[in-house]
């Protein structure tokens, strides 16, 4: 059995504590199935690759959020290009992937997946701030991750929440 390198050890610790960050970022940017798995793998790959340059200059979670969001945003831009190549007229947000028909959704509503679908339908930057907010990060932490000022975060979050609430209104009505 070979000894673990410091990078592997650190990554192992990160996986234990922060694996959820990678999964949630992937699920917020990629629709289900192969895309989500690909993005999650890519995020893990980038986080593992970045572990060597981590010197404790920020909290591990901040570091992981940054790497994961940068990877997801880059992936998302690439996805947009790939989709445009396939169908120049298609709108990425027009039909949420895996959307259920009315009868089916009335019968069974996976609220978490509905929430993810709502998040994925938002513009990239709104997705990022909503995700960080739902994960319970403070404005200061969100500012460290995004590079925006706390004031900006506040404004962006209000705007993103309004958009998300609008998208989730249908579900709300359906349930009430």
């Amino acid at each position, binding site marked *: 059995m070979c000894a673990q390198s410091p990078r*592997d050890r650190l*990554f*192992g610790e990160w*996986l*234990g504590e922060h*694996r*959820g960050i990678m*999964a*949630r970022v992937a699920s917020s940017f990629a629709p289900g199935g192969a895309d989500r798995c690909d993005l999650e*793998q890519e995020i*893990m*790959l*980038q986080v*593992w*690759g*970045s572990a060597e*340059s*981590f010197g404790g200059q*920020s909290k591990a979670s901040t*570091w992981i959020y*940054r*790497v994961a*969001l*940068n990877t997801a*945003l880059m992936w998302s*831009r690439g996805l*947009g*290009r790939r989709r445009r190549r396939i169908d120049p007229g298609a709108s990425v947000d027009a039909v949420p992937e895996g959307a259920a028909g009315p009868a089916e959704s009335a019968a069974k509503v996976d*609220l*978490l997946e509905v*929430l993810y679908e709502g998040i994925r339908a938002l*513009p*990239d*930057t*709104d997705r*990022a701030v909503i995700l960080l907010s*739902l*994960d*319970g990060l403070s404005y200061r932490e969100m500012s*460290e*991750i*995004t*590079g*925006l000022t706390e*004031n*900006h975060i506040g*404004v*962006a979050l209000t*705007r993103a*929440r309004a958009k998300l*609430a609008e998208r*989730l209104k249908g*579900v*709300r009505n359906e*349930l*009430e």
Partner: protein
Amino acid sequence: MNWNDWEFIWRRQKAPIGADADLERLRASFEASHRLQSRALLVRDVAEAAAGVVAAAALGYFGLRLGRAGWPFAFAVALILGVSGFFVLERIRASRIRIGPAATVLERVEADLAEMRRQRKLLTSVAVWYIAPIFLSELIVIATVAGRAKPWEIQRDPVFLGAFVLLMAGTNGWAWQINRRAVRKRIDPRLAELEKLRSDLLSGS
């Protein structure tokens, strides 16, 4: 349902288990992609720099064979080496401004934007730093060879010379078109995406 309900649903989701990430597979995948990328970059850089050096060496050889009359070839060699040097300097500059993997989202977007703008600038000014020196060096070679030829030799034939210059101009014009097309089809859409992303990030409205 209000926002707190959605937050509750979010926080109730199960955290994935860390053990399903295969370190060996990640390492192999990372190293393979890193190796591929490094090799591609090396091949590109060497090819770009070497093409100029080989062309300059060939011109130098023919210039020397012409003896004293071949002195204008020195200018042609200098122009081609200048283009190669420019390529090398650009690569060095680009490698120095790369930012780390855990830069903030805004820093990453701005770095990508700066890199894309730099590429656009290079491609739109390709006529100045690439096509013009190459075309000029071609003209120097043609003029020198024609000047040394006997009046009855084909190198002095105006029709031949005109056709040759037209061919060179056409080739260079085609190279310019390819670069313009790359700007239009590849760079501009990405630039627009990045600018939108940056403006979304910074928009306070």
